[in-house]
């Protein structure tokens, strides 16, 4: 469901920088399903991946060799993260993270504090690079209390920072997190202009079928904003489910997750 909810956020014809992990699967689903003309790009260098056959599974890593066959360009990180993303050409990004907070800041580095970490995570990779510069950011992670924080244990990737004007103040482009797709619902962010005005807070947009507002609020530790047009997400179609199982090829999907 999370994979599918994320995939549905991808628009046909847009250039997308796809982060490691589940985003690779969501983006592949979008490409096979409703966005054949999206530009599927990963940070290790392959730009505009077009699978040479519908039988191929989704890439399982950002440097997966299957990404080169069918790509329009085989470049490097200076091309993919430097020019494509930091140069401002990535219309959307799909990112996973360990934590997200009220203002959409992401944490990829550790649980706890730097001086006394509960656990060191692999780190940001290109996450911070992408969050700083992509025109539109879609984050994706399971809705769990350890992941949703009033303030992330550590901010490795800038969202709206502490609220309106935060990005401009920090010297970042006025744009930022736009969507967060989870295992129970989809959030948007309350800002009309990329973080200059509005509360810049996460807003509940869509509930998955069978999920209640209360269940979500019970997990999110702050007083959650709810969209006036809160709706239920359309259930996954047979086509989406078949595709996602085929594409995943047993790599990401785990019972009860995603």
């Amino acid at each position: 469901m999370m994979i599918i909810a994320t995939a549905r956020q991808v628009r046909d014809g847009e250039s997308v920088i796809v982060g490691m992990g589940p985003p690779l699967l969501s983006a592949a689903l979008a490409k096979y399903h409703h966005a054949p003309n999206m530009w599927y790009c990963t940070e290790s260098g392959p730009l505009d991946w077009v699978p040479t056959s519908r039988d191929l599974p989704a890439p399982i890593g950002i440097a997966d060799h299957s990404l080169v066959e069918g790509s329009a360009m085989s470049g490097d990180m200076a091309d993919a993260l430097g020019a494509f993303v930091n140069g401002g050409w990535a219309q959307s990004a799909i990112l996973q993270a360990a934590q997200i907070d009220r203002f959409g800041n992401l944490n990829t580095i550790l649980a706890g504090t730097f001086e006394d970490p509960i656990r060191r995570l692999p780190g940001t990779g290109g996450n911070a690079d992408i969050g700083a510069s992509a025109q539109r950011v879609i984050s994706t992670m399971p809705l769990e209390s350890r992941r949703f924080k009033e303030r992330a244990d550590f901010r490795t990737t800038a969202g709206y920072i502490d609220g309106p004007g935060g990005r401009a103040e920090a010297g970042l482009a006025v744009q930022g997190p736009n969507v967060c797709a989870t295992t129970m619902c989809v959030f948007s962010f309350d800002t009309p202009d990329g973080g200059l005005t509005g509360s810049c807070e996460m807003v509940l947009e869509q509930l998955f079928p069978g999920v209640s507002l209360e269940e979500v609020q019970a997990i999110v530790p702050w007083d959650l904003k709810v969209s006036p047009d809160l709706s239920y997400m359309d259930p996954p179609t047979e086509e989406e489910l078949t595709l996602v199982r085929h594409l995943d090829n047993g790599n990401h999907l785990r019972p009860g997750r995603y």
Partner: protein
Amino acid sequence: MAEPIDSWPSGRSKLMTAREAVQRFVSDGDTIYSGFNILSLSLTNEIIRQGKKHLKAVAGSVTPNVTMMSIAGSVDRIETGYLSGTLNSKPFQEMMRDGRVKWNDYTNMTITLRLMAGGMGMPFICANSFLGTDYLKPEIMNHSRSLAEDRRREDGSISPPYAVIESPFDGKKALLYPALKPDVAIVHCQRADEEGNIQIWGPQADTKWGLWASRNVLVTAEEIVPRSVISTEPHFTVVPGFKVSAVIHEPWGAHPSGLNGHYRADRSWMELTGYGMTDWDSARQYLDEWVYGTEDHAAYITRYRERFGDDLLEALRVKDKMVPEQPAQYGWR
């Protein structure tokens, strides 16, 4: 205001004529990247035909087509490291002396790095090239024919063309150059597909970063090929299609300069005409006959054939092939 590149949905063909490309994507006052590798005479001539004005030409080294655009009145500002074809052009020498053409000097490397910075969203980048030279003298940075006006800040002060600071890391002197982000790039390539995936081989110079840094990329391609030709040799792609605004099919598009794998430079023609730049009369003559007098590059090539015969042109075609001894394999399954 030229049409922004993001008005293009992906997957849609960007094939068009040089005329349409210049109409849609080149505006008076634009900064235009046109490197010495590989010049697109087709787009150069079209810019002159459409009478575009007040363009600023930038590249590590610029080819005689920039001198041409200057003499024709389209280019009046230049930022480059090398002006190919100035020495023998009285009109151009005159324009640089009397200020009709203004300029600031950089170098092959520093323009490449400035484009790299522009392409990667950096405000500036370091290089030590001008340390210890007269270029760091304030009166030179803003000499009377410099581009100081282009660098005027909102508060009225003038931003320098390069600046020395102390490194916050080791305290040593560092020379910074501002990022360069052209509005338009014009270039010719060996091949491209309809979506604008551009493939170039041979000496690369500053081409790749010139294209990444430019808002709109207009490319003339010797060959238009299917996507599968591009994607089975993805290492030749210098910028992907979403970065490109217009693709024009233009055989002999680099003439009179050469195109690796296709044809050699037409040195006899260059010497014959020097692109007609040696004096004002020859310049007007050249422009009337070869630019205003031809409606497009096909007509230019046709006139060339009529004037000099097919043989002279065909003799330029490359005959030898450099064949990979052991072609690299990308297989993964």
